[in-house]
């Protein structure tokens, strides 16, 4: 009787998952490197053919063009490197203002969306559904070409109490001018900040030890506002407002917001607020109603319930997508290029690129800036997430 002996057949080596994995990776890496080398070779040939010298030397040569809005001293004789900083600051300025406005508007509308008042809730819904379904570029164009182009010329400016003026050249606001004694006010504000920190620490410790609560929030607010205001009054009001005045064909003095900036800021805030509102709504709805009931049954009043129970839990849900929206806003501010607001893309990747022909350098620098901002914020976000993540068994 012949016994069936099962000598295990060794599978061929190409069926071994480990060897396969290594082979796949080697192929993928080799293909990537080969593709990169191919692009590099083509670029070298093309650059030689077009006679473009690569490198970053162009950054130090003089630009020869003016920029509409600049936060740091800039003139036509400044270098291309200076253009970069002016443009970057303009991007950061419009992004920072946009983030503040969009957050305020977004939270108001998000909370309104959950209002028990039917009319308010429906209005908020209409706002959200309208603005998030229309391309941002279209909204920017609408504000810039249809609304702000339709305002009158400087001589027929629309004015608000003869201190704020709106005309085709922009929105003119009174500019604050700091006088010598203003340093004291800043010092007082710094002092108030320190005092608030001490107060918060003390009240927390007292509550831990004795259980007595102290109205730390209102006391801090009073300190932060009261101390600088009192100093301001004592120092003899060291601040004057320079009101814009019509001289000749245009306004002189004051703070001017150019139409490009105004329309970009308006549309960025309105558009992003619609997304933030949905995030806020989802965050608040994510906290189950049982939490509120439990808090009431423990004897906490509605204000404390909101502050100590609902908000901390809602923020855990809200903050990650909210940061995403902030990042989107920063990236979307690059649409400035379409209406000529001198941001990074318009002034640097646009004008400088066209003048110098250094396409690779300009695009690379621009992309690197956005990438750095994104990665920085992602890193912060991950750290925050680790801190607030639910600790489970």
């Amino acid at each position, binding site marked *: 009787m012949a016994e069936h002996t099962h000598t295990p057949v060794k599978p061929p080596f190409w069926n071994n998952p480990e060897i396969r*994995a290594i082979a*796949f*990776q*080697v192929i*993928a*890496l080799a293909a*990537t490197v080969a593709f990169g080398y191919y*692009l590099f070779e*083509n*670029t070298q*040939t*093309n*650059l030689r*053919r077009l006679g473009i010298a690569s490198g970053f030397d162009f950054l130090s040569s003089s630009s020869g063009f003016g920029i509409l809005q600049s936060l740091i001293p800039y003139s036509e004789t400044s270098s291309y490197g200076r253009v970069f900083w002016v443009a970057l600051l303009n991007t950061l300025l419009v992004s920072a203002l946009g983030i503040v406005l969009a957050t305020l508007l977004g939270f108001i509308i998000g909370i309104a969306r959950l*209002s*028990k*008042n*039917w*009319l*308010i809730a429906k*209005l908020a819904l209409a706002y959200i*559904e*309208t603005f*998030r*379904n*229309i*391309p*941002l*570029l*279209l*909204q920017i*164009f*609408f504000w810039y*070409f*249809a*609304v702000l*182009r339709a305002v009158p010329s400087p001589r027929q400016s629309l004015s608000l109490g003869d201190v704020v003026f709106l005309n085709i050249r922009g929105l003119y606001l009174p500019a604050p001018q700091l006088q010598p004694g203003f340093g004291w006010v800043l010092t007082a504000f710094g002092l108030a900040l320190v005092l608030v920190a001490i107060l918060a620490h003390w009240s927390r410790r007292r509550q831990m030890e004795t259980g007595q609560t102290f109205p730390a929030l209102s006391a801090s607010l009073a300190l932060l506002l009261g101390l600088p205001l009192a100093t301001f009054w004592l120092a003899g009001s060291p601040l004057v407002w320079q009101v814009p005045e019509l001289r000749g064909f245009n306004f002189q003095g004051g703070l001017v917001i150019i139409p490009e900036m105004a329309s970009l800021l308006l549309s960025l805030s309105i558009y992003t607020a619609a997304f933030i509102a949905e995030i806020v709504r989802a965050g608040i709805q994510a906290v189950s109603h049982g939490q509120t009931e439990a808090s009431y049954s423990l004897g906490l009043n509605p204000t404390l319930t909101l502050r100590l129970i609902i908000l901390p839990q809602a923020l855990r849900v809200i903050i990650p997508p909210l940061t995403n929206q902030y990042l989107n806003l920063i*990236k*979307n501010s*690059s*649409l400035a*290029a*379409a209406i000529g607001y001198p941001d990074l*893309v318009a002034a640097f*990747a646009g004008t400088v*690129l066209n003048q110098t022909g250094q*396409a*690779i350098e300009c*695009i690379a620098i*621009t*992309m690197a800036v*956005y*990438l750095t901002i*994104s*990665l920085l914020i992602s890193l912060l976000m991950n750290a925050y997430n680790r801190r607030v993540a639910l600790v489970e068994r």
Partner: protein
Amino acid sequence: MTDAHPSRPDLPPASAIGAFGWLRRNLFSSPFNIALTGLASYLLYLTVPHVLHWALLDATWSGDSREACQANGGACWVFIRANFEQFMYGFYPEAQRWRVDTALLLLILGAAPLFVRTVPNKFKVRWGLGLLLVYPLVAFVLFKGDLFGLRAVDTSRWGGLLLTLVIAGVGMTAALPLGILLALGRRSQMPAIQTLCMTFIELWRGVPLITVLFMSSVMLPLFLPVGVNFDKLLRALIGVTLFQSAYMAEVVRGGLQAIPKGQFEAAAALGLGYWKTMALIVLPQALKLVIPGIVNTFIALFKDTSLVLIIGLFDLMNTVHNATTNPAWLGFSTEGYVFAAAVYWLFCFGMSRYSQNLEKRLHTGHKR
């Protein structure tokens, strides 16, 4: 007990039910609520009559030149009417526009079985995949011509809503599979593949689309061998697709992460290989979970097609913008933008409603 129903004490008081009760509960429940209602009504009173008068009551609907609009103070919809063909087809030759219409008709006829609920799912999948492979070819031949005796129409003449839909359609059909592959790569056990996919995704997600389009228009020619020249539209398509596939990858990854490990183990126990596990077990569940995310990406892509204006393509946005700067029709930019906004809004809102519907229909159990 004073306001209880006089004859039927078991019924709720009259003030708590019916239209009056609804008003009281939803609009006038507390002093704060009354103030809010007042504020909202005032806001509506300030805006709605203005908008109604402008858009409907005082608007001009008929005529064929700007002179027709001088008499009325409201919107001049004549501007839209006069330029409507251009908004839809761009500079596509008038005599050839039937080809675009035919392609649209074919799409509607081809896609119709997918939306009929009585058609079996198995047939829908096959038909859908077939359509996905065949339709782009048919549409391309119809649009571009130069084959079967059709006159050639250069892509630079494609425009208006047609171009917007072409970019959005190609972007969607290409970004989804690419995004799925990238997501699988990012979740892969192989470190090299994982790093490559992660770098790719983070790189595209970190930069604005506009710089990607700039890159594809000024840098792509430098990357290619001498003599090879890509069509402007193709360059934009590559940019949009790569950009959105990175976002799609992150959405799909979310779905992959939500699939319990047991599913992978069960598939392995049944002897399924990697691709079969993914295609038959994991992806059908993962994709169903992230339908809202996928549609959100589609909507974002649809809105982002408007950015091709910056590299000089005449999509709906640019065609409308161009028409508002036409000297014969100066001063009607509001009408133009409102029209374009309405078109974009209809598409985006429609997509989001359809996804909500789909989500509800595919929600097989698991409801808590």
